[in-house]
């Protein structure tokens, strides 16, 4: 077992009466991790604690083994891409990155080389000598991303990096994050566009109201929710025949026929259902044209969890 990248134990942070985090406990391992939760759940507060912009009120927070509040060279091991999009508007992108790298202690020539490289990585080379005030929202996201990776940190913290980025840019950012992961970097990325996180990683931390409601592997999280029956839609030319076979499974609660050539199965244990399905199809010679579940995505899991486990809609 490798050391956790981020370890939070009972972290609490308040702003006066407003609660940011409340008994937040999570262990975040290597690779890409998605941090998801609705607006106001505490995502940005968590990031600000991780980069030492805020001090925990209670509890213990370790980032790469360090306490993030306070100064220190370990800061160079962390890169942070904040959510808001204002920059040093009067500078050019290259100037901005070079200055930040020099503030981080890189000698001038190296800072310049690294800035140019990071800008090329996010695909802004053409615009690097334009003043940032002329940049669009999508370009700003990329500048922020570039400054968070330019100093080659071990841990990269990205607060909503896909917000305001068009499909072209999103694809580029996501492939960059995977490249970073493959080269051994750890990435914590928050988003509320859930299908994007789902495409990026299985490791997630779900928070709401300043608390972790689930963390770990997405599919394991889902299989933990046994009390949450899945509705699975199946398309087949022979619904009755398929229904007869499926009805033999004891976790199948109900079977409906919502329309021509379609079947809706409700199962108490989706894990077992999906596990048994390929074998059944082969053994019984079923002709299943399509299978899928509206509940089989992050959105559904999240909705289920944040509603406090009141069962399916």
């Amino acid at each position, binding site marked *: 077992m490798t050391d956790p990248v981020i370890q939070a134990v009972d972290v609490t942070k308040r702003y006066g009466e407003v609660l940011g985090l409340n008994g937040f406990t999570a262990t975040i391992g290597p690779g890409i991790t998605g941090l998801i939760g609705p*607006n106001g759940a505490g995502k940005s507060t968590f990031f600000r604690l991780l980069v030492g912009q805020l001090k925990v009120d209670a509890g213990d927070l370790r980032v790469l083994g360090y306490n993030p509040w306070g100064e220190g060279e370990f800061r160079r091991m962390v890169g942070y891409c904040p959510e808001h999009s204002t920059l040093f508007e009067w500078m050019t992108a290259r100037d901005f990155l070079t200055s930040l790298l020099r503030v981080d202690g890189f000698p001038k020539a190296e800072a310049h080389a690294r800035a140019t490289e990071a800008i090329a990585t996010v695909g802004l080379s053409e615009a690097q000598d334009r003043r940032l005030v002329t940049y669009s929202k999508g370009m700003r996201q990329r500048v922020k991303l570039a400054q968070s990776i330019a100093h080659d940190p071990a841990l990269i913290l990205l607060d909503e990096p896909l917000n305001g980025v*068009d499909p*072209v840019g999103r694809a580029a950012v996501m492939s960059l994050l995977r490249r970073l992961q493959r080269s051994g970097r750890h990435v914590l990325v928050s988003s509320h566009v859930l*299908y994007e996180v789902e*495409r990026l990683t299985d490791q997630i931390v779900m928070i709401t109201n300043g608390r972790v409601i689930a963390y770990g592997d997405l599919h394991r999280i889902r299989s933990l929710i046994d009390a949450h029956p899945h509705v699975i839609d199946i398309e087949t030319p022979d619904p009755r025949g398929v229904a007869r076979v499926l009805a033999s499974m004891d976790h199948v609660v109900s079977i409906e026929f919502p329309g021509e050539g379609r079947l809706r199965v409700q199962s108490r244990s989706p894990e077992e259902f999906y596990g048994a*399905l390929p074998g059944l199809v082969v053994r019984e010679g079923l*002709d299943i044209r399509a299978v899928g579940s509206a509940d089989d995505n992050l959105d559904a899991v999240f909705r289920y969890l944040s509603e406090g486990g009141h069962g399916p809609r």
Partner: protein
Amino acid sequence: MPVALIEVNGVSKRFGTVEAVSNLSVELSPGSIGLVGPNGSGKTTLIRLLLGLLSPDSGNLSVLGCDPQRDPLGVRGQVGYMPEHDCLSPDLSGIGFVAHMGRVSGLPKEVAISRAHDVLEFVGLAEERYRKIREYSVGMRQRVKLAQAIVHDPPLCFLDEPTAGLDPSGREEMLELLRALGRLPNHSFVLSTHLLHDADGLCDQVLMLDAGHCIASGPVRELIASHEGESVIRIQGDTDRFLASLLQHGLTPKPMDREIRVELAPGTTRAVFESAAEAGVQVRYLGRSVATIEGLFLARVELPVPEDPT
């Protein structure tokens, strides 16, 4: 034949060396219109041209039968505008702000106030309307922005990225609101977005821009029908083994993101389940790839999507 809501004839607009809109001609009829395209594709410039805030270098436009060039106030009197960015005065209450914008649009004071109450109720802020805007959350601010755009009951609204910054439930609620707005008779809107998912299931027409050019326009249903996809599989388990297994069954799978795409002849889904059984993985999803506006867009612009050699 319905009357055209918006007509654009050969419009070009250039800023310095950048041609923001390039010889654009399009005709849109009343309804819910999605204006989609990546950042910098000319969406914003087009809205500014339609509101009469910019003059085209060439060509002409018509909005609800008015020329925004010759009669900008005539156009702006009939349209509502919801900007993308924050634009609310924090020191006012929701009701005060919306009523004020109603009066600026020419509603008499009493009408403006009663309309403000109506639209705030419509956007679901009835309980919070007397609170100061500075206390509003992101979602509430988006709602106030929508409310001020429809307070004078315009037949056409321009909505610029109405779901920007919203979380899934907030986004869903906003889209639901827009659907409700689109169902009203004689109420059209132009939804400008680069979150193409937003336009799915909400817009009945689409105008797709890329680098100032129109790459598709017309009713969504017709456009999507012309774009058929292949089959999509999502599994849980060992992807590499499953892929190898599919290859053995004579299929040519293409791993994409977290999905696998594969061409399947009708009635050959069985090979998928056999492969799954051999590889010991679960088939979590199998189906034809759903034709979406995003899919249509990706197909039209030939994106340089970086493939991951996993």
